[in-house]
């Protein structure tokens, strides 16, 4: 469990006068649930890239616990991300030709020679948890909703401290989106992970405690002080959301 601390972070692109991201200070406590909203082009994805170490800011510090990502090399950031961050992306980025469980294990396969049995067991348990029974099913034969659930299982395999979701429900129909949204919040809670989601999905946004609104690279709204616990009603829908197909 680590806290995130950004200070003086600025990202500029050549040819643009205003920085695409300009955050003097931002702190996210361990286990917090945060939704990032804002119009397109407001810097949401850039913020996600910076806090996951995918992109290096021009200046400032991005501190996760004791580690500042900014001075790290690209390989060091890759290694840090592999052990600390679980990513769920809008376009799933699952790999056709591989089964559901092989997709879940793929990031691990890039790092270790043979996958330990307990990790394999965890992968299977996570697939069960997201409601998928046929672990050997080829990924390309699955529905989009099922695919995103595989991606959620993959993101959680390494017990990440931070679960980052970039528009996780945007390419899904309403029902699948609801299932995935619920899974994300529940699993972040179960796994004690900080959840940071970029989303336009009001249903998912409403389930997260803290809301950051970005406009033109700046945080214009932060509901840090007005966090509300999940209501009984939304907890009930979460139960319904556990589909067992």
């Amino acid at each position, binding site marked *: 469990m680590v806290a995130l601390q950004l200070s003086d972070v600025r990202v500029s692109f050549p040819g643009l006068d205003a920085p695409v991201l300009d955050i003097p200070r931002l702190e996210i406590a361990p286990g917090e649930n945060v939704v990032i909203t804002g119009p397109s082009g407001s810097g949401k*994805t850039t913020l*996600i*890239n910076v806090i*996951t170490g*995918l*992109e290096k800011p021009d200046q400032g510090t991005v501190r996760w616990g004791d580690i500042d990502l900014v001075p790290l090399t*690209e*390989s060091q950031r*890759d*290694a840090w*991300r*592999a*052990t600390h*961050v679980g*990513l769920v*992306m*809008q*376009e799933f*980025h699952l*790999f*056709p*030709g*591989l089964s559901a469980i*092989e997709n879940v294990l*793929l*990031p691990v*396969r*890039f*790092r*270790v*020679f043979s996958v330990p049995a307990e990790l394999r067991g965890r992968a299977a348990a996570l697939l069960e948890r997201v409601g998928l029974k046929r672990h050997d099913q080829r990924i390309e034969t699955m529905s989009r909703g099922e695919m995103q659930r595989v991606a959620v299982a*993959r993101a959680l395999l*390494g017990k990440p401290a931070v679960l980052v979701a*970039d528009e996780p429900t945007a390419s899904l129909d309403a029902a699948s989106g609801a299932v995935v949204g619920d899974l994300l919040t529940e699993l972040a809670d179960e796994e004690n992970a900080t959840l940071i989601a970029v989303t336009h999905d009001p249903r998912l946004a409403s389930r997260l405690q803290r809301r950051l609104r970005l406009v033109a690279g700046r945080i214009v709204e932060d509901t840090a002080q007005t966090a509300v616990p999940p209501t009984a009603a939304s907890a009930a829908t979460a139960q319904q959301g556990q589909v067992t197909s």
Partner: protein
Amino acid sequence: MIPVRFILADLRRLWAGSLVIVLLIGLATALGIAVGIQERALRLGSARAADRFDVVIGAAGSETQLVLSSVFLQAAPLTLLPGQVLKKLAEDPRVDWAAPVGFGDSFQGSPIVGTTNEFLTDKGRRQLLAGHVFEKRTDAVAGALVDLQPGDTVKPIHGLPGEGGHSHDELAYTIVGRLAPTGTPWDRAILVPIEAVWSIHGMGPAGAHAESDHAAAGDHDHDHDGAQDHAAADHLGPPWSAGVPGVPAIIVKPKSIAAAYQLRQEYRAETTVGVFPAEVLTRLYATLGDARLVLTAIAIGTQALVGAAVVLVSVVHLSQRRRQIGALRALGAPRAAIFGVVWVELLLLIGLGVALGVGLGYLGAKVAASFFTVQSGIVLPVTLEASDVGFAAVLLLVAALIALIPAWLAYRQPPAAALRA
């Protein structure tokens, strides 16, 4: 670590493009391999074809033409040697046997070559496949590849195979034997007694009416005056009479190597030329070597082009994979693993292509060699040797180095690309 399953799934997904790359590399490799194999086969095959011909004596002129005509039966008009040379050689104590070869006629595409029984059997050292040697002037012995059986009739056409010409109606040969295969152009020849060739072309003491002379000789079998006629008409091969007609070339089997050198030296004179076919071939190989150099250069040029095409394809392909590679990085795959994935995938395709190319090149050389054998009679020993495999290995090594370029590009690709829509 590079996940094998991921690579296999990836290649399966991109099977069409992968197949094209494998085929391109395969064909380019095959070209290079085939050139090498074929050239060596041609060298070996022609050397083996010349094996039986220790020394060839002809009238002064082109040595190459003499060898091509006598050893490889690529007949061209040769100046005739005086018959005295044949007689002198046949009686030379250093000579085991000396056989004339006379060309000029053909039958169904096979050259008809006049010679002696000594040549047919290497003076008794070689067995015929079937039948017997010349006993009469009208006897003929077919080479192993000639589609004629003992008893078949051969009506010679004047002129070389493939050329038009009048048929010699005055004489027909009967096949009496078949030669064992030798892997030389002689397998496609029909061999007849040299005396018949002389008589059919109106040369020699027997004249053009050999058959009637023969009949007359038979009538006067015990007539002392007829003995001369009888000898001329019925007798085949040496000893030659004083009036023996001219021949285009004489194949000489010397008794020793020293004799071979002496003979060649002696017959390198004003009006005659003596050659070791092997020596002439060596000179030809030098020319052949230049041709090989050109072909090899073409093959390497092709391979370079294909290499460039593969790099181009893989770079274009890589730009389409930006998001996939970005996603792998975002999910925590190390850069080195991305580098490895791209490199290993390309190397697998290249390796498959090169292996396919070695097989195709070998098969191609085999097919080309069999066509060559059908046309010339020369059997080309097509073999895959260490040097060919070495060539393929060098190709693979160069390809492995070239494949570093797209792998390096993938290595440098920023991972953030994955998250941008």
